């Protein structure tokens, strides 16, 4: 039922194509935006995502990545997803390496600066199996922001003159009617679905995000549906005591899943830092052999465990406790 409804909203348009206002408004009008509880399991949440959808991913690099949800999408055998994120890390590896996604729009894609190039990205992109469309970081931000504002584009002053712009005819050079200056108009990005991990939200989806926000607010406003994973679900009363801390309003949100350590092995601001031992093991294995190494990682850590908690237990209590201690220390003087 969810699957069907999700499929109905599937777009199948060429990336960079701007949705008409009529389409955008129509999709939003059909969403149930009422104040209602929307807590589901990770498995149910994954059923909101259909093959071929465009998927916006929250967080950035190794921070507040919705890893549990990505992990579940891979387990559920999703295919041909077209993903976007401001900066892509091991989440992109897993999406390409598993076959869940064949296209990513982002500004940077490796595992992390510490580890050089991602052999998984290289293998998949250089072979032509997958497509990596490059935009500048700010352009990604302005694309989500245009999408969230309900306008078809925003003007920017970067990318001009670069190879990055030449590769993206979806963005249009433009002479400003006010000043005569050259600007670049970047097209709105309204993903079919956004995946966002937060520190806390209520059962309706009112989400409060501590620390770094990245592009999550714009992404949530832009997407045609939003799935939140959250470290914890709090009461609506708690949200209403500090409404100026709410960053995503409930009516943008279609599903809420409580997943403690839902960004592991990446970090969640104020809760845990990245789990570097696991990441280093991962990077050595997949960069050593981006096919067999990735297959083994997926078998062992994605398809293997019975649940997200079992995956966490494979990371190990020692590393989780250490990451948590470091995570909480951000609030120390």
């Amino acid at each position, binding site marked *: 039922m969810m699957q069907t409804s999700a499929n109905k909203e599937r777009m199948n348009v060429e990336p960079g194509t701007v949705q008409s206002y009529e389409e955008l408004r129509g999709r939003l009008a059909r969403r149930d935006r009422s104040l209602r509880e929307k807590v589901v399991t990770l498995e149910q949440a994954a059923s909101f995502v259909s093959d071929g959808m465009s998927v916006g991913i929250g967080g950035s690099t190794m921070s507040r990545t919705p890893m549990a949800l990505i992990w579940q999408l891979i387990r559920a055998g999703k295919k041909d997803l077209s993903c976007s994120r401001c900066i892509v890390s091991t989440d992109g590896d897993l999406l390409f390496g598993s076959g869940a996604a064949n296209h990513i729009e982002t500004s940077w894609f490796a595992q992390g600066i510490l580890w050089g190039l991602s052999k998984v990205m290289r293998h998949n992109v250089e072979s032509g199996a997958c497509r990596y469309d490059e935009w500048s970081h700010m352009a990604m931000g302005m694309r989500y922001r245009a999408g969230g504002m309900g306008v078809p584009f925003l003007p920017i002053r970067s990318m*001009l003159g670069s190879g990055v712009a030449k590769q993206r005819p979806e963005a249009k050079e433009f002479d400003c009617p006010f000043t005569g200056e050259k600007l670049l108009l970047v097209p709105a990005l309204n993903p079919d679905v956004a995946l966002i991990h937060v520190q806390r939200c209520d059962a309706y989806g009112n989400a409060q995000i501590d620390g770094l926000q990245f592009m999550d607010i714009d992404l949530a406003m832009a997407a045609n549906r939003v799935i939140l994973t959250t470290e914890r679900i709090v009461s609506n009363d708690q949200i209403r005591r500090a409404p100026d801390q709410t960053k995503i309003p409930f009516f943008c949100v279609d599903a809420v899943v409580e997943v403690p350590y839902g960004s592991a092995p990446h970090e969640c601001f104020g809760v845990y830092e990245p789990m570097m031992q696991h990441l280093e093991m991962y990077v050595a294995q997949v960069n050593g052999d981006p096919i067999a190494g990735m297959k083994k990682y997926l078998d062992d850590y994605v398809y293997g465990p019975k649940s997200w908690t079992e995956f966490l237990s494979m990371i190990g209590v020692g590393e989780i406790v250490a990451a948590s201690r470091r995570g909480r220390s951000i609030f120390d003087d």
Partner: protein
Amino acid sequence: MIEAPKYTASEIITVLSARQLKDGQIVFAGIGTPLLAATLAQRLHCPGLTILFEGGVIGAFVEPGKLPPSTNDQRCTKRANMVLGSADVLLLLQRGYVDVGFMGGAQIDRYGNLNSSYIGDPAKPKTRLPGTGGGNDIASLTNMIVAMKHEKRRFVEKVDFITSPGFIRGNNTRAESGLPEGGMFRVITELAVFSFDDNSREMKVLALNPGVTKENLQDNTGFDLVFDKNVTVTEPPSNQELTTLRVLDPDRLFIA
């Protein structure tokens, strides 16, 4: 360098980069050497240096031994004045609040154009590199310091792909491309410090690092070098600079 070095290539790059920063500046720093050099400058001659990170941070003081693995990690927010959205921190560059953009480079050409996207033909690349991140935005919108390793294959006549624009094809071509502000200011390597000619916009050698000859430098560079008429020799890293740097990066994440 002929003598047994008292410091690594990364160390001298970091120290010389830190020296380029002035107290009170607003610096947008990339991960790795830029973050480390800006933090070093804060601890040496720039206590009032404001460091911006792409993750959405204004005025951080990164802690010794806790260098973040990217500029999007919580460690980047330590003792910051403000945390904001990443699009919004990038917009500060566009509005003009930033004095200096400071990043690393994989490949650079005579006009300071940077490539971090493709080795070989972009349509069928030998190597797909990670891409621009905020590099394109920073290089498009503010004055740039680039810190990078000096190798012949990295210092090329013409980059395979312009990821982050320098002066494009020199002269006025940057402004004509729609980028009237900013541009390359300095390039720092383990061999030399470079600036750019005010008119032609060609890279030129401003100072040689200790022990480096013009011939050494040319041998390691993929295009014919222009030397400033007053080329100097840089003071070597001081003990204080090196000691402070090594305290910041005890695990030698970025100075190995």
